[in-house]
């Protein structure tokens, strides 16, 4: 049932490397970006060595091979999240671009001054700023589902907000700071009952949980390859095909057109309508390989392993005097532990841990409003993935004790 952790770790060559002072890397920053297994690195290498060509237009061997690999990856991703069709998988650069695509295309065609968009207080900046920009541009209204002290959403307030007939509800499936896994199905169902369209920021959920587009029923769902063992530079916007069909194109250029006249164009069909210009071909292929890799291991097993490590980490962290961990208990969260250490700035914590090769993140993790809500400028964040071990948690804990000693 459990993961063969030693076998898995062999797939990630970077986990064997050492820092300049000879310490093995203890990578506890997978929430920022995951490490990449050789299977992904080799899939991309192989593409460049054997099959590199531009896609969709050429008829030669390489172009056909490249196109098949690029589109094959899309099929794999569609299956991975149980989308109804691969036409609903739009390649973007990352989650941020996926959210911006919705803000530029769908929202600018559908929202006018005074229309309400509901977000939450635990959003990443990427699901805040595009809406701030739209608010400045055309006066939409923004409301936020509050976060409780325990780091979960106040659903009663959400239900009250829904009485104001929002046009859009956009929320994160899993917080990148608190680790909270939000009750997405319930939030979506309530939004639909109130007549709103729903977008989900899935940057942290897709890498760690089984997500099923048809069961969830989200209208839009955004995620990135690089947090799920894939490369940077490629992400996905999932959208229900009827919605995507009704939307104006986003960026204009090659590949997104059916026909171009000197003074007009006709947009291509889905998914190409939203994919202007030569895309990140090798990265899409790497994304496909990442999905294969995760599927082969099994998302349920990965989630169970992360849960075990997270539960252990919470227990160990909470026993350290002066450490305060943010977010809900292990049963309500993914593998993210953001904490503060009394009297020591998170930057100093991270820097001192780095001396022992331990990589944690320090700062506001692109969620400044959430930190303001908790009255702190920053946190240190240790996060876990399929290759993380309890031994690494132990090293983190000893590292924190060293920090305490230093700042005595």
């Amino acid at each position, binding site marked *: 049932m459990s993961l063969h952790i030693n076998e898995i770790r062999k797939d990630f060559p970077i986990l064997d490397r050492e820092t300049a002072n000879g310490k093995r890397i203890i990578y506890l920053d997978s929430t920022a970006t995951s490490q990449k297994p050789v299977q992904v690195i080799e899939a991309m290498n192989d593409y460049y060595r054997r099959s590199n060509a531009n896609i969709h237009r050429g008829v030669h061997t390489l172009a056909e091979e490249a196109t098949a690999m690029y589109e094959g990856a899309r099929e794999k991703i569609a299956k991975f999240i149980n989308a109804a069709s691969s036409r609903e998988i739009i390649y973007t650069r990352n989650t941020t671009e996926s959210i911006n695509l919705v803000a530029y295309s769908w929202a600018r065609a559908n929202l006018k001054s005074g229309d309400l968009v509901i977000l939450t207080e635990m959003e990443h900046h990427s699901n805040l700023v595009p809406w701030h920009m739209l608010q400045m541009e055309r006066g939409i209204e923004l409301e936020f589902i509050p976060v409780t002290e325990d780091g979960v959403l106040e659903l009663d307030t959400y239900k009250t907000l829904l009485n104001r007939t929002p046009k859009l509800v956009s929320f994160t499936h899993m917080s990148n700071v608190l680790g909270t896994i939000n009750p997405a199905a319930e939030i979506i169902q309530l939004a639909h009952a109130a007549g709103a369209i729903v977008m989900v920021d899935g940057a942290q959920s897709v890498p760690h949980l089984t997500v099923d587009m048809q069961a969830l029923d989200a209208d839009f769902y955004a995620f990135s390859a690089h947090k799920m063992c894939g490369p940077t530079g490629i992400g996905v916007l999932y959208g229900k095909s009827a919605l995507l069909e009704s939307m104006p194109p986003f960026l204009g250029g090659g590949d997104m057109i059916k026909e171009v006249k000197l003074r007009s164009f006709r947009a291509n069909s889905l998914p190409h309508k939203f994919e202007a210009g030569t895309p990140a071909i090798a990265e899409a292929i790497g994304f496909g390989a990442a999905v294969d890799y995760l599927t082969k291991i099994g998302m349920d097993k990965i989630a169970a392993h992360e849960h075990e490590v997270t539960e252990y980490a919470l227990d160990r962290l909470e026993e350290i005097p002066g450490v305060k961990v943010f977010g809900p208990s292990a049963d309500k969260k993914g593998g993210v532990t953001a904490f503060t250490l009394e*009297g020591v700035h998170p930057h100093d914590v991270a820097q001192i841990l780095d001396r022992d090769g331990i990589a944690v993140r320090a700062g506001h993790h692109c969620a400044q409003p959430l930190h303001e809500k908790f009255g702190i400028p920053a946190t240190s964040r240790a996060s876990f993935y399929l290759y993380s071990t309890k031994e690494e948690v132990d090293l983190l804990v000893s590292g924190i004790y060293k920090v305490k000693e230093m700042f005595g």
Partner: protein
Amino acid sequence: MDDLYREVIIEHYKNPSYRGKLDPHDISFADNNPLCGDHIQIDLRVDTSGMVTDARFDGHGCAISQASADLLMEMVIGKPLEEVKKLNKQDILDMLGIDLGPVRLKCALLSLKVLKAGVYGLGEASDDLVE
């Protein structure tokens, strides 16, 4: 690396001599380091000859940024504004006595940036001030 957290830095972080605000003051300026959310405000009193007679900093941040601010206040008291304007990155590094990577350099230089923006009477603290 141990150098980064020299005793003097931890000491100035934990027990700063110049933390606080000056009221009244002749110059006051505040800014953030957006990377880590550090915040520093600096108040100065300046006499008619243009000499800094008192200086205080306030705010929050990592040991490097706060110790750097405290040491900087100590350094500028008694200096003419014209000399304060000439302070640069190297002066801060010499003052701290440590080498810093690009990320932590921003922490160390935040107080100088704030100080110089205030002294020059600028609306915004720019990185150019501390090159």
